[in-house]
């Protein structure tokens, strides 16, 4: 299955379970663009988790463009989708590979968002491309986090570098990269412990890991991926902001998009922090990773409506 198909399959479940109340919008041809109409759209936007500000902006756009006219819903929907697709558009190749030596990818995020699983998925993807991967288990804090990544490494046949529980994560990261260089590996992916973005000490620790990697290879880490749980609401904005401040994130991985959550907070993040989504997670298995595709993502945001046209 191609990346795009996977992406769509992951989103399918979302569409199946959608509530019917907003479908009524599409009934009966043209509608007058009045306050009630705008309020209905506002609610559609809010339900995607894109937040008050982005929702309001889109509603304002509808208001100024269609004010007091009778319009087809499809026309409004098309306009909104187009705007969002442009906003979320992404270059084809999401990973900036190092011209030589290992490409270093650091993975960060709050607790339980899906970092370790995402790393397994990324590793598998690179392996499929014929690349050689070394994993660094720099979550030395959470119980059995190292064991978890080790199990994945064994399943995938990737090399893994670990440290004892409670040891300095920066030193694990350092050793992992050293190993990757020694192996002449193509990619080195560093796992980190989950942390809430408000925990200053832990955020500094993250900065230190970032710095240590940069000492070995000046451009490293080449990518810093922030994993975001798709069920996350407005706190995602704060996550994107603080993690970017600490470790200059280069993009998002939107995990757990196989549920009913729409992950619309990435719209607000793109607007306010600028981070693009690079991949999405659509399941718990190593193959459940897909390239982010703005078209499909935006279609899925409103799929429950289009389905009933």
């Amino acid at each position, binding site marked *: 299955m191609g990346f795009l198909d996977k992406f769509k399959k992951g989103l399918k*479940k979302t569409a*199946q*379970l959608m509530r019917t109340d907003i479908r009524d919008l599409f009934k009966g041809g043209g509608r007058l663009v009045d306050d009630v109409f705008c309020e209905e759209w506002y*609610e559609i936007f*809010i*339900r*995607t*988790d894109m*937040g*008050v500000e982005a929702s309001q902006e889109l509603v304002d756009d509808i208001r100024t463009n269609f004010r007091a006219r009778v319009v087809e819903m499809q026309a409004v929907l098309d306009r909104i989708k187009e705007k969002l697709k442009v906003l979320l558009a992404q270059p084809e190749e999401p990973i900036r590979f190092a011209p030589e030596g290992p490409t270093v990818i650091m993975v960060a995020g*709050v*607790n*339980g*968002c*899906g970092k370790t699983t995402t790393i397994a998925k990324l590793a598998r993807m690179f392996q499929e491309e014929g690349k050689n991967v070394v994993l660094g288990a720099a979550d030395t*804090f*959470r*119980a*059995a*986090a190292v*064991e*978890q990544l*080790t*199990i*994945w490494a064994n399943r995938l046949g990737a090399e893994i570098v670990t440290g004892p529980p409670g040891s300095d994560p920066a030193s694990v990261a350092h050793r992992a990269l050293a190993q990757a260089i020694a192996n002449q590996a193509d990619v080195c992916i560093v796992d980190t412990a989950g942390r*809430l*973005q*408000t*925990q200053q000490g832990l955020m500094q620790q993250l900065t230190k890991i970032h710095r240590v990697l940069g000492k070995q290879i000046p451009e490293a880490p080449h990518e810093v991926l922030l994993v975001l*749980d798709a*069920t*996350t*609401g*407005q*706190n*995602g904005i*704060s996550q994107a902001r603080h993690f970017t401040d600490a470790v200059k994130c280069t993009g998002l991985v939107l995990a*757990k998009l*196989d*549920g*009913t*959550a*729409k992950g619309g*907070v990435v719209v607000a993040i793109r607007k306010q922090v600028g981070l693009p989504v690079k991949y999405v997670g659509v399941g*718990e298995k190593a193959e459940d990773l897909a390239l982010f595709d703005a078209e499909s993502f935006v279609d899925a945001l409103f799929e429950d409506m289009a389905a009933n046209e």
Partner: protein
Amino acid sequence: MFEALQENLSSALRTLRGTAVLTESNMREGLRTVHRALLEADVSLPAVKAFMDRVTQQAVGERVLKAIDPSKQLVYIVYQELVNLMGPVDHSMHLGGEVSILMLCGLQGSGKTTTCGKLGGLIKQRGRQPMLVAADLQRPAAIQQLQILGEQLELPVYADLNAQDPVRLCQAAVRQAKALGANVLILDTAGRLHVDRELMEQLTQIDNRVGPDQVYLVVDAMTGQDAVHSAQAFNEALELDGVIMTKLDGDARGGAALSVKHVTGVPIKFIGTGEHLDALEEFHPDRMAGRILGMGDIVTLVEQAQQKFDQEEMAKQQARMLKGQFTLDDFKKMLGQVGKLGPLQKVMGYIPGFGQMQKMMDAMGADAEGDMKRLVGVIDSMTPDERADPTKVVDLSRRRRIAAGAGVQPHEVNDLVKQFDLMSGMMRQMAGMGIRQRMKAMQQLAQDGMNPNAALSKKKIGTGKRLTSTDRAKMKKIRDRELRKKKREAKKR
């Protein structure tokens, strides 16, 4: 954040100054601001809608209080309603019987395993013998994770690295619980999506075959609009008994608490406030309400508003008292006001004689909300003349009849009558004072929990009935406890 909402509300409600009552139209802008604040805090849309309807109903027709800014008055109503909806408080895990079984379930990564450990630690502290059951056979190293937590907590962990079927594993754990010396089992189930039919069915199977006494949903505080969907699905599959909200140590506003309560109706029992195993706290709707509204100092604000509000109402009651008209009917009305005003502990202090009662209830570990209902029940079971002058009219046989009618013990009727007598005695004394003196006396009363040995007795004011020496000793204990608590809290800040 608090300033922002307050400011927005102030400007939205500027026109309200000088109006007599709140109406839907003069509050519209203010309500819109509240609506927005709730969405920003991630309360799910259906929950927001239901909530706004309730608040509007509550607020329409309220007198605009002259003493305070109308925006504060609205915030106050909003806050109270949030507290009401996220309550009532029920922290009990209903542990009892030979072996109790708790089951945790939820989406992937919500914090089930960690919470399993935290609950185990808490239950052990409370003197029972918990055992953790590693029923997540899905996530790599989930079993090891629980085993490590068990080691840290010195708790037994039931695990089987070769197990395939979590239903059987749980059954086996239950069968062996007693032999392993455990009387509370905590099942750590695998995370799953609520749309995953197969895995949801598996959860139902565990529920049916093992019959847990309590099933808790573990919810991440950062959850957005989807909270209603997942919580509803879990509740339909399992009939939840409670919710535990994790990761509240960050800056998430936690609006999902309201969403989840809205769709499941079950109490939120605990909150997780960190990764460490002691970072589990009992849930408090008032704190959560302040957090959702983004108001650190909401409590102070509400107290100010309350004080003014209560003073007005109380002045009225007192006017009746002055004329010797205070009856149990008035008393009931006061109870009604108190109920409406919410956080009971806070408001009760403002009513003469109630501080003490409240502290007594606290000391007995009683649930104040429930006791309030009982009091009202007792009053409702009285005849009009009994209510008018209970001290004189209610004799032994009447007491029995009233108790039977209200479904309480006769001594509870007696307690109420005594308390009423005490109160009206106080009120009568205060009627003789000037207004400022009276306010002071009342505050003193509230603080001292009506101990006749405190402030008032210095002024040589009889209190009708004397407390016995054991009562006084009890009171002192209670007062000391309160004092220690206050000190502790002061230190924490």
